[in-house]
């Protein structure tokens, strides 16, 4: 197995492939081509990169117009600006008008770390999840990112994809195992029925690490990858709940409205499954590297293990 890859690099190479075959596929940037790892795309297909300048709202609206006239734009901006500054453009021009625009939120979550709250997107899942006709994805490794982008280059539906900046460790053996279709999650680890850890994106590898540490401590866990945050794999969650009755979610997002909320909403009607949500508390985020911040908020593997042990007592 290779040593992992950055989601941005994978998206760029997949998009070059797809856009070479389908000249309607465009990358739309807002002075963001470097941070979106799109320099190779710009070099390979200069006519298919549409630069909009530092104008995230207009980037989305113009993309909707282009999509309406047959183009297949992928809009790349920092997740914070794309999902918050441009959210009405996303809601009206993309989701409501049903234009085939794919929104790629780069440097998501806390990845901008010490650049501060203006640059964090710890609310993007809450916001995008509440918009009808908008799929929401968070890929966790290179194979999943590749398979997801291949799907998105073919699909006709509006979608938001959030990625981070880290090199993603490999979790899957190949693309087929990693992503099949919207609304399909994966059980990536299954050692028993004490607890089910549920995560997506960059934090999935932390959940997996925590599950392996729990196993050594005699706690038998499952780990679920919810790459498709919307549509949600409710069937899978129900199957897990039938077996474990205790879910612990982990996400690089506010504890309000994100993956944990989605999971809790899905299983609440059952009345038999506890859901503990691990994420960013509802307060200004402390400054630090992403790792320091995760440790501070108890979101690293060791902290997750401790929390699970306490909750299971």
């Amino acid at each position, binding site marked *: 197995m290779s040593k992992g890859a950055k989601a941005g690099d994978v998206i760029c190479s997949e998009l070059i492939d797809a856009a070479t075959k389908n000249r309607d596929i465009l990358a739309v940037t807002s*002075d963001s081509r*470097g941070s979106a790892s799109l320099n190779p795309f710009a070099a390979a297909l200069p006519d298919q990169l549409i630069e909009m300048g530092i104008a995230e709202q207009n980037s989305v609206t113009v993309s909707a117009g282009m999509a309406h006239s047959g183009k297949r734009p992928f809009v790349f901006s920092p997740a914070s600006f794309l999902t918050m500054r441009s959210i009405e453009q996303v809601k009206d021009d993309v989701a409501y008008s049903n234009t085939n625009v794919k929104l790629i939120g780069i440097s998501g979550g806390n990845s901008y770390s010490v650049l*501060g709250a203006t*640059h964090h997107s710890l609310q993007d899942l809450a916001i995008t999840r509440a918009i009808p006709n908008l799929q929401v994805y968070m890929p966790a490794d290179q194979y999943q990112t590749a398979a997801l982008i291949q799907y998105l280059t073919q699909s006709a539906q509006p979608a938001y994809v959030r990625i981070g900046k880290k090199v993603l460790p490999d979790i899957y053996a190949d693309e087929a195992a990693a992503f099949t279709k919207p609304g399909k999650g994966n059980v990536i680890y299954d050692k028993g029925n004490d607890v089910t850890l549920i995560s997506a994106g960059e934090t999935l590898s932390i959940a997996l690490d925590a599950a392996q540490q729990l196993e050594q401590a005699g706690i038998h866990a499952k780990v679920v990858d919810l790459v498709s945050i919307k549509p949600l794999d409710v069937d899978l969650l129900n199957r897990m709940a039938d077996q474990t009755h205790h879910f612990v979610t982990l996400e690089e997002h506010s504890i309000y409205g994100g993956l944990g909320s989605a999971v809790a909403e899905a299983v609440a009607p059952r009345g038999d499954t506890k859901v503990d949500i691990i994420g960013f508390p509802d307060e200004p985020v*402390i400054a*630090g590297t992403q790792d320091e911040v995760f440790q501070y908020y108890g979101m690293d593997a060791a902290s997750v293990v401790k929390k699970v042990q306490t909750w299971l007592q």
Partner: protein
Amino acid sequence: MATTRELELKAAEMRKATWEMIYRAKTGHTGSDLSCADILVALYNQVLKQTPATFTDPNRDRYIQSKGHAVEILYNVLADQGYFPKSDLLTYSQFNSPYIGHPTNHINGIELNTGSLGHGLGLSVGVALAGKLDHRDYHVYTLMGDGEQAEGSVWEAAMSAGNYKLDNLTAIIDHNRLQISGPTADVMNSEPLADKYRAFGFDVVEIDGNNMAELVSALSTTNTPERPKLILADTIKGKGISFAENQAAWHHKVPTAEQYQQGLDELNAVIGGLQNE
């Protein structure tokens, strides 16, 4: 009143402190900071009616930095003015430090939080409008980037400044003609900026934004009654470090050890020259 030479020396010292700070922390918007060092030094040392002692006075002048990413130069100027100890800045970008990579009002001397581009002019319009409503005679200054001019919110704010005839507002554009991806003319051409702001009701003054005398003069001239002012300050991004000047790649580049030393030598030479004048 400081002399032009004293202000130039101050700007060189601020550049040096910023260069050192970015190298130490291994993060920062180097080119963006160096570009507007002279603007901030002129403003804080000669123009802005505000001191650490009057920072909470409702009649103080206000400064809102719309191009929040140039925070390292702002921190150094504020420390030099005495808003907080210089030693605080040793924690810049470290765990649990309030001195993060964009301005936040957890820090003494900073009015409002910026970092997402396209907010500073609108915030300043609000501050200026409140001043008019309260019949206070303070002035508000804001500094924007030229790449930032692509944000639609800038023009919504400009329209409202003209509409409300805000002669207590001065906007400055750090007109270095570069942004992250390259020349602003290629990324998203926003010219002719002077004509555009004039059309929105501003008086426009075009100056060399790295020239201290021109800066002090443009910043301290009172506005034409009922007109907001736009200072189009032609600057050199990366100014003061030969190999960073006019290089888009230096937008947020951190110097290597070798580059750091070379840059320090260049800045020290400028400081030495000004001291001996």
